[in-house]
C-alpha cells in the first residue's frame, strides 16, 4: 500500500465516510454493510469494486482500516473518473474529484456542498431542486421522490458529480449512505449482479436483486424504504437553515410532518442497521401517521370510514388504481374501514409510492396491522438488521395471515406472539347444546319441575284447558297431566335453548300420569298429538273428564281421574264398543297392573322417585322398571302394554312415575316417533290406538333407544319415566275418548234402530 495524500476536501470527506462506516468506532472498518453500500453506491462495476478492494488491501487484511478505506475511496474516485485502477493512481491522479456515491446522493451532495459554501445558496438550490410536493406529501418527500424518480427511471449513474459533502455537518455521512440505499434499486444496476467476495456483498446483491425483481419482495432485502429516503432527505438539510425552510414549506403544503421529527427519525434510521426491514415504520413516521389519523378520527381505537379515507388519500394525487391497490393491501379485515394500524400501513404505502417505490403485491409484514400499542410498534421498528433478513423468509407467513384477516384481528395476542409465523385459527367453542348437555338441562329442568309438582297438578281441568291453549302443541287436556305438562312446558320453555324444542316436544308427547311432578320432560306427546290431529282432545276432554272422574280411579293428586280403560291395548280397542268396554277396560287395567312389573325396572328410578313428591315411590319403582323392561322388549305389544301400564301408573301414582318417566323420556323424545308410527300402522282403526301406540311407542322408542344412546343410566331412566308418563297420559286420554265415542256410538245406534223401526211402521202405510 502506498502512501496516500489527500486534499483537504478529500481528507474531510474520507474521514467522514470512514467515521460513518466505522460504526463500531474501532478505527478499522470491517466489511460491514455501510462499506458495501458505500461502494455499491459508487455505481461501479463489480469487478472494479473488487479490484478496488483488493488494491486497497482490504481483502488482504480482511477489513478496512482507515488507510485502506481512504485508498478505496480514492480508487473509487479514480474509477469513477474513468481512469484505470492502479495503485499508483492513488497519488498520481491529481485533482481527482471526490468519489461519488449514488446519483441522488451526488445531487444531495451537490446541494450539501453548496450549502457548505453558502447556506442560502444551498437553500436556494435545495428549494429549487425540491419540486412542489404533492398536497399531502411533505416537501422532503417530494424532493426525495424527485430524486428517487430520477435515478430509478434512468440509468443515470453519473449525475451531478458534486463533491461529497464534507463532514462539517453533523450527520453528513448518513445521508450519503441513505442516498446510496436509495439509489440501490435505481442506479445500482451495476451492482445488481454483484457477487461480492465477502459476505457483506451478498445482502446487497440480494437486496438489489430483490428490488430488481419488480419489488416482489420488499422485506429485508429491498432497498431502503422510502422512509429512509424521506428520512435521509430530511437529514440532508440538517442545518437549521434547511430546517427552517422545511417547516415553512411544510406549512405551505399543509402537511404536518415536521422536520424535526424527520430529522430525529433520520438519526434513528442512521443508528439502525442497513438491513432493516425497509417497510418498517419509524417512530416519527408512526407518530405522524397517528396525528393524521387523529385529524380524521379522534379516537385512536376507532375506525376511519372508507369515504373519509378515500378523500384523505386522494389528496396524495396518486392514481385511483394505485390507491385502490393500497387500500386492498392495508384494509386487513376487509371491513371498509381503517383502524389505526391499517391507516398507518396505508399511509406508509402511499408514502412509498410517492417516493417511487412500487407497491408490493402483499402487505409487508412490518405493515401488518397489529393490535398493539404504538410502543410495541416502535419496538418492532427498532429491531436490528436481522429483521431485514428474517423479513423475507417471514414473507410467506405474513402472506398467509392476510388470508385470515379476521383471525388476526380477533386474536391479536396470538397474532402478535406468532406475528408472522403462524396462522391463528379459532378454537371451536360449542355454542349449541350438545345432546348430553341438553339432557343435563333436562335433568335440571325435571328436577326443578319435580319440585313443584303438586301445585300445577292441583289445577282443575279448566286450567288445564287454558294451559292447553297456552301450549298449543299439547292437544289432550288430561287434567293434571296436561296441567303438569303445560306447567312443565312453560317451565321448560322459559329459558331453554334449542334443545328445549326437542324436549318440549317430548314432554308434549307424553301425558305422563305424573302430573303432580311438573313433568320435567316437556310433554313428548306433542308429536303424538300432532299425529292424532284428528282427535281433538280439547273437545273430548271436558266430556270425558266427567265420565272418567266417575269411573276412573282418582289419582291422589288433582290429576283428573284417568280413565281406567285408557290403556286398552289395540286389540282391546277393537272390541265392540259398549259401556262395558270401559268396564272391561278398567277390569283389564287391574289385570294389566300385574304386567306392570314387567314394565320397567324402576329400581333405577328410585333416585328420582325419592326426589319426587310421589306418594307411591314404590309403585313407581315397580312400574318404572316394568315399564323399562317392557319397553326394552321393544315390541309393539309391549309398547302397548307399556302404554297401558302407563295408564296404570298414571292412575296409581300421581306425579312421581310420570315425572320420572317424563324425565327419562324427555331426552329421548325424538326416537319414539318412529315407533309410534310403527304402532300406528298396526292400529290404524282407532286414533286412540294411535295415541296409545304413540305413547307406547314413545316409551318403546325410549327404551329401544336407550342402548343406542350412550347416556347415563339416570338420563335413560328419566327419559323412560317421562315416556312412561306420557304414555300413561295418552292412554288415559285415549281411553276416555274411546269410552265417549263408544257411548255416542251406542246412542246413535239406538237412535238408528228406533228410526228404522218407525220407518218400518210407516212404510206399510206408505205402501198402502
Amino acid at each position: 500500500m502506498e502512501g496516500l495524500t489527500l486534499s483537504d476536501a478529500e481528507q474531510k470527506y474520507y474521514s467522514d465516510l470512514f467515521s460513518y462506516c466505522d460504526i463500531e468506532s474501532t478505527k478499522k472498518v470491517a466489511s460491514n454493510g455501510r462499506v458495501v453500500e458505500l461502494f455499491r453506491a459508487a455505481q461501479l462495476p463489480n469487478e472494479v469494486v473488487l479490484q478496488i478492494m483488493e488494491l486497497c488491501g482490504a481483502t488482504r487484511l480482511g477489513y478496512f482500516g482507515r488507510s485502506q478505506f481512504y485508498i478505496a475511496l480514492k480508487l473509487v474516485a479514480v474509477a469513477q473518473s474513468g481512469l484505470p485502477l492502479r495503485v499508483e493512481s492513488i497519488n498520481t491522479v491529481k485533482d481527482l474529484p471526490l468519489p461519488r456515491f449514488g446519483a441522488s446522493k451526488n445531487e444531495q451532495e451537490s446541494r450539501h456542498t453548496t450549502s457548505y459554501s453558502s447556506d442560502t445558496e444551498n437553500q436556494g438550490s435545495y428549494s429549487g431542486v425540491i419540486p412542489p410536493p404533492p398536497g399531502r406529501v411533505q416537501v422532503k418527500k417530494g424532493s426525495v421522490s424527485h430524486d428517487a424518480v430520477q435515478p430509478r427511471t434512468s440509468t443515470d449513474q453519473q449525475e451531478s458529480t458534486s463533491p461529497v459533502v464534507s463532514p462539517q455537518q453533523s450527520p453528513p455521512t448518513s445521508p450519503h449512505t441513505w442516498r446510496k440505499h436509495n439509489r440501490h434499486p435505481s442506479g445500482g444496476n451495476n451492482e445488481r449482479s454483484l457477487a461480492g467476495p465477502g459476505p457483506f456483498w451478498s445482502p446487497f446483491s440480494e437486496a438489489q436483486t430483490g428490488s430488481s425483481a419488480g419489488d416482489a419482495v420488499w422485506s429485508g432485502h429491498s432497498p431502503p424504504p422510502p422512509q429512509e429516503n424521506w428520512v435521509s432527505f430530511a437529514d440532508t438539510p440538517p442545518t437549521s437553515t434547511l430546517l427552517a425552510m422545511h417547516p415553512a414549506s411544510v406549512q405551505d403544503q399543509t402537511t404536518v410532518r415536521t422536520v424535526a421529527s424527520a430529522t430525529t427519525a433520520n438519526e434513528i434510521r442512521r443508528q439502525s442497521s442497513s438491513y432493516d426491514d425497509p417497510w418498517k415504520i419509524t417512530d416519527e413516521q408512526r407518530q405522524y401517521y397517528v396525528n393524521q389519523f387523529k385529524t380524521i378520527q379522534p379516537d385512536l381505537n376507532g375506525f376511519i370510514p372508507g369515504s373519509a379515507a378515500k378523500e384523505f388519500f386522494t389528496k396524495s394525487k396518486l392514481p385511483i388504481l394505485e390507491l385502490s391497490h393500497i387500500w386492498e393491501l392495508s384494509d386487513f379485515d376487509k371491513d371498509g374501514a381503517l383502524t389505526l394500524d391499517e391507516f398507518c400501513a396505508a399511509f406508509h404505502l402511499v408514502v412509498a409510492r410517492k417516493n417511487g417505490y412500487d407497491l408490493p403485491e402483499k402487505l409487508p409484514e412490518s405493515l401488518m396491522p397489529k393490535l398493539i400499542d404504538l410502543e410495541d410498534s416502535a419496538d418492532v421498528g427498532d429491531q436490528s438488521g436481522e429483521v431485514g433478513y428474517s423479513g423475507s423468509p417471514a414473507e410467506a407467513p405474513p402472506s398467509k395471515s392476510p388470508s385470515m384477516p379476521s383471525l388476526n384481528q380477533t386474536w391479536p395476542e396470538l397474532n402478535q406472539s406468532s406475528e408472522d409465523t403462524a396462522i391463528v385459527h379459532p378454537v371451536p367453542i360449542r355454542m349449541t347444546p350438545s345432546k348430553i348437555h341438553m339432557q343435563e338441562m333436562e335433568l335440571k329442568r325435571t328436577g326443578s319441575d319435580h319440585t313443584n309438582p303438586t301445585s300445577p297438578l292441583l289445577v282443575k281441568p279448566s286450567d288445564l284447558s287454558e294451559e292447553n291453549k297456552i301450549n298449543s302443541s299439547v292437544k289432550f287436556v288430561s287434567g293434571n297431566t296436561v296441567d303438569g305438562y303445560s306447567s312443565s312446558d312453560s317451565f321448560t320453555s322459559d329459558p331453554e335453548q334449542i334443545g328445549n324444542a326437542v324436549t318440549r316436544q317430548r314432554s308434549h308427547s307424553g301425558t305422563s300420569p305424573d302430573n303432580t311432578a311438573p313433568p320435567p320432560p316437556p310433554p313428548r306427546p306433542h308429536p303424538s298429538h300432532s299425529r292424532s290431529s284428528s282427535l281433538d282432545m280439547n273437545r273430548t276432554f271436558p266430556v270425558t273428564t266427567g265420565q272418567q272422574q266417575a269411573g276412573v280411579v282418582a289419582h291422589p293428586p288433582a290429576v283428573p281421574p284417568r280413565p281406567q280403560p285408557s290403556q286398552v291395548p289395540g286389540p282391546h280397542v277393537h272390541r265392540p264398543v259398549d259401556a262395558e268396554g270401559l268396564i272391561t277396560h278398567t277390569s283389564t287395567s287391574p289385570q294389566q297392573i300385574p304386567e306392570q312389573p314387567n314394565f320397567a325396572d324402576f329400581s333405577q328410578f328410585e333416585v328420582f322417585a325419592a326426589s319426587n313428591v310421589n306418594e307411591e315411590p314404590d309403585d313407581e319403582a315397580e312400574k318404572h322398571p316394568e315399564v323399562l323392561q317392557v319397553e326394552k322388549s321393544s315390541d309393539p305389544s309391549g309398547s302397548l302394554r307399556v302404554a297401558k301400564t302407563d295408564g296404570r301408573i298414571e292412575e296409581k301414582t300421581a306425579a312421581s312415575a310420570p315425572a320420572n318417566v317424563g324425565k327419562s323420556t324427555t331426552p329421548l323424545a325424538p326416537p319414539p316417533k318412529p315407533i309410534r308410527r310403527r304402532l300406528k300402522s298396526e292400529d290404524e282403526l282407532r286414533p286412540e290406538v294411535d295415541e296409545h301406540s304413540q305413547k307406547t311407542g314413545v316409551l318403546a322408542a325410549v327404551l329401544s333407544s336407550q342402548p343406542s344412546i350412550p347416556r347415563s343410566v339416570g338420563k335413560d331412566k328419566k327419559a323412560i319415566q317421562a315416556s312412561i308418563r306420557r304414555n300413561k297420559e295418552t292412554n288415559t286420554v285415549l281411553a276416555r275418548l274411546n269410552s265417549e265415542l263408544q257411548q255416542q256410538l251406542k246412542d246413535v245406534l239406538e237412535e238408528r234402530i228406533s228410526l228404522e223401526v218407525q220407518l218400518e211402521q210407516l212404510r206399510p202405510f206408505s205402501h198402502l
Partner: protein
Amino acid sequence: MAVCIAVIAKENYPLYIRSIPAEQELKFHYTVHTSLDVVDEKVSAMGKALVDQRELYLGLLYPTEDYKVYGYVTNSKVKFVMVVDSSNTALRDNEIRSMFRKLHNSYTDVMCNPFYNPGDRIHSRAFDNMVTSMMVQVC
C-alpha cells in the same frame, strides 16, 4: 378448472371477464353474452315472491359439447358466469358452488374498497389473483 369467468353488472355489461385460452376469448365472450338470457330466464322463473328465498347459485345454465356454463346471481343482480370445460368431469356441483362463493367473497372485498366505484371495471389485483387461482391451468 374454469376456462372463463365473467362478472356481469346489473345492467348486463361486463365488469370483469377473463378467459384462459386467449385465442378463444371472443368465443367465450359470446358464450357469456348468450348465457345472460338463460340467467334472466332462470331468475324470472323463480317468481317475484321468491326473491328473498331465491338461491344465488343458479346451477348449470346450459351445456354445450365443449363446455358447460354455470351461473350465479347476487341479490344486487350482479351475475357471475363461469364457463367450465366439459372434459373436466371431475368438477362436481359442490366445487362449482364453492368457486362461486369465493368469487362472491372477492367481489364483496372489491366493493368494500372505497376507491372502487360501483360500475367500474374491476382492476383489483387480489380479485385477479383469486380468479387466476380458479382458472384452469392450460399449458
